[in-house]
């Protein structure tokens, strides 16, 4: 029992840190709380990251509902890392906009904890609890600026979509439970494969898969369940947008991979055809709408919808051979989530800095950024190039690992459409570059960066180059994590 508690160390550290943050907020003076609360949050996240890293190679179930496997630890590490960047980049942004800093950091920690639980869940009840905890904390974080009309509107829209989507997903889960008579993912796979199921209800498998995919697709912002995403990303406080568009979205893909691969391999023809269509829809529609946006923040929101389509290619490419070899599809999802999370977090951090310095995030506010803050412009250039998938940056490595399995499975139509989309995406990324470097409007003067923001941007830049250049090592990590998934 005690040895199992050690497996939960990353989660326990987060819980304790959240409690400390709330207590510190209660007792510390406002001046101290300003640096104390983000400081404690960062230390807790770092400790939790180390605890997850040390146990990466583990592979055992904990207390029947949570898996301590390398697949879960990989996502936990990505989540801890990105939330640390969010805290660093968002410290000053949040301090200027709200008094309730303790609640903000505590909620952020609980949301991270929810991600930890969700990616490790091997039982649909636990999975639902984890996803719901993540959703409910995200609603509050999105609407955190209570007096701000846009933040509030974003939260209301996110809530209505989210609550409906989770109810639909839950109905799908209840059908799966009825067919198989179990809530455990691996047991479910066993019964579906061997045919020990409620014979008269088997026809419900197809609707069940569709309903479950709706729920996951909502979290991952797949078209046509994406309508909340641009509004929530635009209206939410920018640090929260960083969180929602990176790790919260990645969690959607983590559960999708785990549920499809470890619970529903017997129904693969259903979910493969479904994800194939959704991938094409998502990347095409996301890109087309992103092309005609006037706000950089909203453009990045739609581009993040388009990227969801690319990540989904990894799931489409999942082969029957399993996840133990490179290019199995699952490692593509992991690579893409990692690369995309650090890149997009950086891009939204730049948006936050420009919002603070220039008072908005439309294309005009980015005009002549190179003269007003060379570092910010250079950083944004790197992030945009990485999002576009230019070597040797992280985005290229990620695209490589989702294209490869799709081509290996001979889904050439999908591969060609994805290629066209990658080119279209480069078009609107370069529009930002054009405004930053070649448009000579300069009404707002220089933009100064806080220390935390500088560290966050450097962390993203270093991460992007590291993933791009040491692609082999990260590919080894991703393949190992995919192969370590419990129940493979």
């Amino acid at each position: 029992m005690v040895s199992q508690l050690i497996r939960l160390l990353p989660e326990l550290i987060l819980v304790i840190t959240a409690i400390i943050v709330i207590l510190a907020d209660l007792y510390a003076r406002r001046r101290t709380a300003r640096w104390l609360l983000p400081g404690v949050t960062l230390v807790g996240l770092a400790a939790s990251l180390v605890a997850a890293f040390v146990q990466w190679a583990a592979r055992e179930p904990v207390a029947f509902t949570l898996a301590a496997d390398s697949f879960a630890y990989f996502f936990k590490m990505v989540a801890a890392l990105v939330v640390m960047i969010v805290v660093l980049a968002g410290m000053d942004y949040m301090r200027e906009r709200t008094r309730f800093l303790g609640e903000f950091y505590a909620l952020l920690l609980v949301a991270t904890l929810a991600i930890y639980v969700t990616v490790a869940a091997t039982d649909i009840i636990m999975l639902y609890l984890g996803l719901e905890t993540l959703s409910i904390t995200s609603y509050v974080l999105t609407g955190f600026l209570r007096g701000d009309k846009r933040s509030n509107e974003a939260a209301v829209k996110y809530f209505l979509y989210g609550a409906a989507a989770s109810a639909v997903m839950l109905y799908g889960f209840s059908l799966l439970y009825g067919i198989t008579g179990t809530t455990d993912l691996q047991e479910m796979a066993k019964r579906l494969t061997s045919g020990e199921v409620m014979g008269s209800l088997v026809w419900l498998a197809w609707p069940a898969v569709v309903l479950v995919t709706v729920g996951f697709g909502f979290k991952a912002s797949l078209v046509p369940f994406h309508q909340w995403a641009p509004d929530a990303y635009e209206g939410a406080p920018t640090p929260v947008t960083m969180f929602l568009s990176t790790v919260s979205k990645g969690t959607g893909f983590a559960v999708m991979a785990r549920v499809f691969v470890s619970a529903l391999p017997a129904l693969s023809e259903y979910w493969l055809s479904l994800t194939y269509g959704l991938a094409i829809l998502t990347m095409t529609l996301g890109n087309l709408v992103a092309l005609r946006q006037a706000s950089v923040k909203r453009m990045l929101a739609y581009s993040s919808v388009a990227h969801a389509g690319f990540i989904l290619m990894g799931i489409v490419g999942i082969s029957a051979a399993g996840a133990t070899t490179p290019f199995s599809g699952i490692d593509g999802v992991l690579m893409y989530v990692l690369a995309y999370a650090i890149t997009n977090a950086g891009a939204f951090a730049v948006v936050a800095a420009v919002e603070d310095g220039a008072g908005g995030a439309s294309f005009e506010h980015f005009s002549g950024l190179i003269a007003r803050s060379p570092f910010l412009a250079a950083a944004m250039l790197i992030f945009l190039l990485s999002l576009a998938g230019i070597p040797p940056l992280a985005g290229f490595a990620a695209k490589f690992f989702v294209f490869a399995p799709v081509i290996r499975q001979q889904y050439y139509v999908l591969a060609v459409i994805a290629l066209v989309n990658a080119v279209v995406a480069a078009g609107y990324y370069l529009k930002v570059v054009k405004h930053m470097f070649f448009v000579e409007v300069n009404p707002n003067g220089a933009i100064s960066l806080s220390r935390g923001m500088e560290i966050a941007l450097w962390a993203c830049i270093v991460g992007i180059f590291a993933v791009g250049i040491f692609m082999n090592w990260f590919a080894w990590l991703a393949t190992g994590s995919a192969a370590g998934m419990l129940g493979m």
Partner: protein
Amino acid sequence: MIPLSWFLAVSAILFVIGFFGVLSRRNAIAILMGIELMLNAVNINVLAFWRYTQPENPAGLVWAIIVITVAAAEAAVGLALFIALYRLRTTVNIDEVDLLKG
């Protein structure tokens, strides 16, 4: 004994009514009521399956209780957001909440 399929039919009808409510209502609170109906449909499903297929394993019961609890938490957060919305805009009609679009 009432056959299992009757429960499933009631649950499916309830789910569809709830979903129709979510899609057709413009008042945020009415939409929330639709969502609650959908969650109740799930509970009927889960409990019927539990009772008819494996009454010795409490997983289904636990699940239903967890769904009820989570629905309460969700409603609390949702209503808080609606109150904040009403204070800012004096409306909870989601058609009139349209600052963010495009």
